[in-house]
């Protein structure tokens, strides 16, 4: 919150700088703004940039470095009796206690004077650090302001500088998308690499047994943990197949009806209806699956003498399919509408009925686009999390029976990472390896689908 106020202070300074820079420019022009190279407002923006950009940069860097520095100082100041020869994770716990002590929370160990002293030190350092940051940021801001002020002369090409700066800011903004991808790839690969140091690559990809519970102590039962992800892949595949079996026919048929049969009034009702289905958060579908659909399937199964698990793949898959219907139908609708009318006319002109035209001309012509849409929908289903977290099981059964409970890649990622974790156990790291697989598979599907769709569009443009 305090940092937020500081940011506003910097922006306030920049506003003052804008007005001052503008006034300064008019002043140096001797009251004749026409002799200036640029409009006076550009000189204002020029000084505002000189204030805000360096100050905010300093602020950002400070915010990243300060906690690490303070941490080092606090830990360095601890007597050896406390730190001793503790391992890194124990040091982390100690640091946590000091933090809790400083903020007045409950502490998990006896408070001895050394610990209290460290906590006091932390409080002092944090307070000092904050005011130092405020001073530094404001100083940098004022420094930038003075520099800009001294540079303002009638010859200063303020507009060009401002536009160059804006251009750089724009480029940086558009690079954030790239940086996000790089960040995803980097963090997934980095953590997965740490995982594959502990668990062999082939065991993960081809192992048939998944039970990621690693023991805390070496003498515990089942200490090894098994990381064969095949049951997860199969579970994901099974649920995705069920989802697509629901979504593909319903989505496609509704798209066909909307594009070819429906009159505008019907479309005006039906299209928003499908959009509503698309706008419902997945957690709501998950709740629906777990509380309405799964019991329904189980009871129906009981009634006809089938043994349906209460967390059956069928329930999760069907609800996921429902979620994907609007996705399939709106993509296919676009694709079908892109088929040129002349092809339909050609078919009608030969005396074909509407359904004959759709089945033998429109759909074959739109096929690449439809395939692309289905691939995108599949990728959506594979990556969908909340429905399966709430409605699918946790046990990694290797089965293709839709009435049994299976687990999926995303369920395991959530289960492994929610709650307390240590960041060097194979159990936690395996989530990142699963994430990497998920990312690669969905990315491949997307790239293929998008290029198929793009080629298709080019054909009829």
């Amino acid at each position, binding site marked *: 919150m305090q940092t937020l106020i500081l940011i506003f202070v910097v922006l306030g300074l920049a506003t003052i700088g804008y007005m001052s820079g503008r006034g300064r420019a008019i002043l140096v022009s001797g009251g004749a703004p026409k002799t200036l190279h640029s409009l006076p407002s550009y000189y204002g923006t020029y000084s505002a940039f000189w204030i805000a950009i360096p100050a905010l940069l300093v602020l950002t860097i400070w915010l990243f470095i300060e906690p690490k520095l303070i941490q080092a100082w606090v830990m360095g100041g601890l007597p050896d009796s406390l730190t001793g020869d503790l391992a890194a994770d124990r040091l982390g716990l100690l640091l946590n206690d000091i933090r809790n002590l400083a903020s007045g929370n409950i502490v998990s160990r006896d408070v001895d004077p050394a610990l209290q002293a460290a906590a006091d030190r932390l409080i002092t350092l944090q307070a000092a650090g904050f005011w130092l940051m405020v001073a530094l940021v404001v100083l940098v801001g004022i420094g930038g302001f003075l520099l800009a002020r001294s540079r303002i002369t009638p010859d200063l090409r303020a507009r060009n500088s401002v536009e160059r700066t804006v251009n750089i800011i724009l480029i940086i903004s558009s690079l954030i998308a790239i940086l996000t991808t790089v960040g995803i790839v980097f963090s997934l690969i980095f953590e997965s690499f740490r995982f594959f140091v502990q668990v062999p690559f082939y065991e993960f990809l081809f192992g048939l047994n998944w039970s990621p519970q690693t023991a805390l102590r070496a003498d515990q039962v089942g200490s090894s943990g098994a990381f064969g992800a095949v049951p997860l892949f199969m579970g994901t595949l099974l649920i995705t197949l069920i989802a697509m079996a629901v979504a593909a026919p319903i989505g496609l048929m509704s798209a066909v009806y909307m594009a070819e049969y429906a*009159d*505008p009034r019907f479309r005006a009702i039906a299209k928003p209806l499908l959009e509503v289905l698309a706008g419902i958060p997945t957690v709501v579908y998950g709740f629906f699956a777990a509380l309405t659909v799964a019991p329904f399937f189980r009871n129906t199964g009981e009634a006809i003498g089938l043994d349906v698990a209460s967390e059956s793949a069928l329930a999760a898959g069907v609800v996921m399919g429902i979620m994907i219907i609007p996705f399939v139908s709106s993509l296919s609708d676009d694709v079908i509408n892109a088929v*040129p*009318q*002349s*092809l*339909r*006319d*050609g*078919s*009608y*002109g*030969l*005396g*074909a*009925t509407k359904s*004959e035209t759709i089945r*033998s*001309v429109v759909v*074959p*012509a739109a096929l690449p686009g439809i395939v692309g849409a289905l691939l995108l929908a599949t990728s959506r289903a594979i990556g969908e999390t909340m429905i399966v977290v709430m409605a699918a099981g946790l046990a990694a059964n290797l089965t293709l029976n839709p009435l049994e409970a299976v687990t999926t890649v995303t369920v395991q990622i959530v289960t492994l990472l929610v709650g307390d974790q240590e960041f060097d156990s194979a159990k936690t790291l395996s989530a990142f390896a699963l994430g990497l697989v998920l990312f690669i598979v969905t990315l491949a599907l997307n790239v293929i689908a998008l290029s198929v769709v793009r080629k298709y569009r080019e054909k009829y443009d």
Partner: protein
Amino acid sequence: MNDGTQAVEQALSESSTPKPATETKHVKILNRDVNVFYGEKHALKHVDLDIYEHEVTALIGPSGCGKSTFLRCLNRMNDVIDSCRVAGTIEIDQTDIYTSGLDVVQLRARVGMVFQKPNPFPKSIFDNVAYGPRIHGTAQNKSEVEEIVRTSLERAGLWKEVHDRLDQPGTGLSGGQQQRLCIARAIAVNPEVILMDEPCSALDPIATAKIEELIDELRENYTIVIVTHSMQQAARVSQRTAFFHLGDLVEVDQTDSMFTNPKDSRTQGYITGRFG
């Protein structure tokens, strides 16, 4: 006199076909007081036009005059457009094609159509031609389908060019070949009437010449109505010509008398190139 008119006269003099006298001819399509509306727009006004069997009737006129609209009335292709409304009487062989009981699918099998831009289906050449016979169930078995495909392609003058690659996509042919494929596709259904909506406007002169020659041959078995932008083409291929202007049917007559001796000043203005 400008170049256009000279070309028309030249085309007329080249066409040495003896024109049969119209009085002995059978009226294939009878149009009385045909009106077309697009929403509020009155696109076609009170058209009375007889189309005779085994003749090529050309519809000419400046852009937006209603000639394509009229053409699309004859096999009810306008049904596809929501805002379009057709009033008046259109009879084919004394049957009103706009009566409520009439089946458009049957109608369109009798009245085929070839479009402005070649629009082969994204299928093989064979399947393009076989499409009509298949949906209408004309052919009982595979060999019959093959027979129809072959004769249709032969009649469209395309057989020699494509007989060794029938399984390749129809979209891979050249523009002129595509249009002849579309004609083959239309005659594979064996319609009684073939409507052609500026069939050569997207083609080069050589391909155009081939299609025109084909149209003249097809006249023997089919009644043909062709919309064209080119007066030379109308003069070359048609026996009768109807001139449309701003939704009105201005004049209809034997093609040679229309071009040599137009009765209406608007027709004269158009064929001498003063507008359009």
